[in-house]
């Protein structure tokens, strides 16, 4: 059993036992509350906080307090002082200023065995918010909740309402152009044109982004022709932070392909007819690709990448499943 689970069970049993004893004997359990240790915070503010905490706990649960004017820094001291005062549990802690922050630590120890029943910490940036801290810590102690779970309207501190600081990436539009070589499918033409428009979000070690593109045969007068529209989301791992950074990755998405082939149609065997026609087939389907590439001029805001993709469109066209191609592109990232 983990330490955390043991702690929660112990706290629950402890608090339940005290509630049972309180109701059974119609007598409120006695807790001691000691003076808080103070560093870089005025003694008056600390005393006020202790008063607020005592009041809030009393409002949350039936308990009577005895006060001790000793400052303890550890549970053994707190348990001893609580025993002297005839208390079943002892509340002690510290209030310390750390730069612009005020950090409040509160612990509750079982006087009988000296074990820590609850240990909570909160930080605020303004001393005026110590009343919120007292209310939140009291609720956490009284109801056996994590202090983070005691937040409600009117009890949220300025620190908690701040937007969490996140690591920044760099995002922008990327445009690419290149060549596509069909491997299977794609009207069996030898060479195609590939054009992509993408959003490229780049962090130090990875990049992600959606792209939409178009692929078509290079010869505009060719009898056989195709059109592919890939719409994918890709993710890539970037090796290195320099101006020449290789990367690998892949992606998946939706593909549309229309594939038209000039074909000779024969009917009959004794009496035969022959004619030429365009056989067209088209479909939507899942598309996947793997990509390797080199990111150039990475330390600049406008970068260039060279990429090679192997694409598979998982659909059946002209009775053949899985249309495959190789795409080589040069991309500019703005």
């Amino acid at each position: 059993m983990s330490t955390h689970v043991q702690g929660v069970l112990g706290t629950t049993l402890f608090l339940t036992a005290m509630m049972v004893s309180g109701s059974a004997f119609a007598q409120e359990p006695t807790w001691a509350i000691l003076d808080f240790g103070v560093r870089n915070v005025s003694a008056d503010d600390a005393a006020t906080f202790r008063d607020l905490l005592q009041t809030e706990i009393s409002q949350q649960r039936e308990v009577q307090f005895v006060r001790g004017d000793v400052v303890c820094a550890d549970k053994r001291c707190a348990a001893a002082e609580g025993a002297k005062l005839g208390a079943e549990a002892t509340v002690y802690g510290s209030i310390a200023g750390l730069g612009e922050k005020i950090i409040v630590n509160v612990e509750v120890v079982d006087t009988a065995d000296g074990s820590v029943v609850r240990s909570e910490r909160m930080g605020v940036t303004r001393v005026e918010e110590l009343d919120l801290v007292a209310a939140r810590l009291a609720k956490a102690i009284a109801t056996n909740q994590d202090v983070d779970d005691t937040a409600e309207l009117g009890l949220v501190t300025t620190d908690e309402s701040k937007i969490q600081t996140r690591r920044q990436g760099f995002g922008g539009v990327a445009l690419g152009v290149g060549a596509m070589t069909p491997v299977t499918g794609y009207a069996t033409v030898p060479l195609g044109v590939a054009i992509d428009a993408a959003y490229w979000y780049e962090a130090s070690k990875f990049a992600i982004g959606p792209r939409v593109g178009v692929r078509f045969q290079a010869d505009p007068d060719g009898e056989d022709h195709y059109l592919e529209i890939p719409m994918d989301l890709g993710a890539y791992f970037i090796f290195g932070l320099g101006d020449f950074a290789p990367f690998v990755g892949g992606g998946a998405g939706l593909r549309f392909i229309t594939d038209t082939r000039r074909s000779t149609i024969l009917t009959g065997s004794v009496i035969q007819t022959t004619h030429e026609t365009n056989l067209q087939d088209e479909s939507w389907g899942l598309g996947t690709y793997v990509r390797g590439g080199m990111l150039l001029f990475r330390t600049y805001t406008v970068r260039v990448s060279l990429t090679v993709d192997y694409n598979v469109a998982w659909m059946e066209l002209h009775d053949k499943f899985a249309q495959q191609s190789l795409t080589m592109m040069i991309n500019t990232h703005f």
Partner: protein
Amino acid sequence: MKRSTKIIAAVVAVMGAISVLGCSIDTGLDGFDDLWDPDPCTGDSPDLNGVWEISGSGKRFDCREEFLNTDRFTLSSVEIPIVYDDATGEIALGQASYGESFEIRSSLVDRACVEFTTVEVVGDQVIEYRWDGNARSDRYIEGEFSGSGPAGCQIQGVFTMSR
């Protein structure tokens, strides 16, 4: 010239012009020419015995499979041995290696007019042609054909047969 003569001449000229223009504009009236066509089946029945080849062209439409529809296809055949019975005026398929996949049905030879039907089974499809030709000699027939199949197609075209 008397005035009445001039009027009659003018009326005749106008009516003549109307007749000419009317015939040129209403091409549908040209169909009446057929009423005066000579009987196409004149002449003696040719000797049709022998090995014939058919060629031609046509169009195919109303097919269930779109790729079979076409405004123009070319038609050819392998060598088809024909046996002609001039007593009954019927033709039949001679010795050939088609098996039961190809046969000649409901034929009729009336002097130079040659009509017959061929049926070919290819896979699960049946292709039927109705040939309606005119023998220009005992070695050459030309005419029109119609038919059906495969995939529900309707067929029309022109053909020649030679040997």
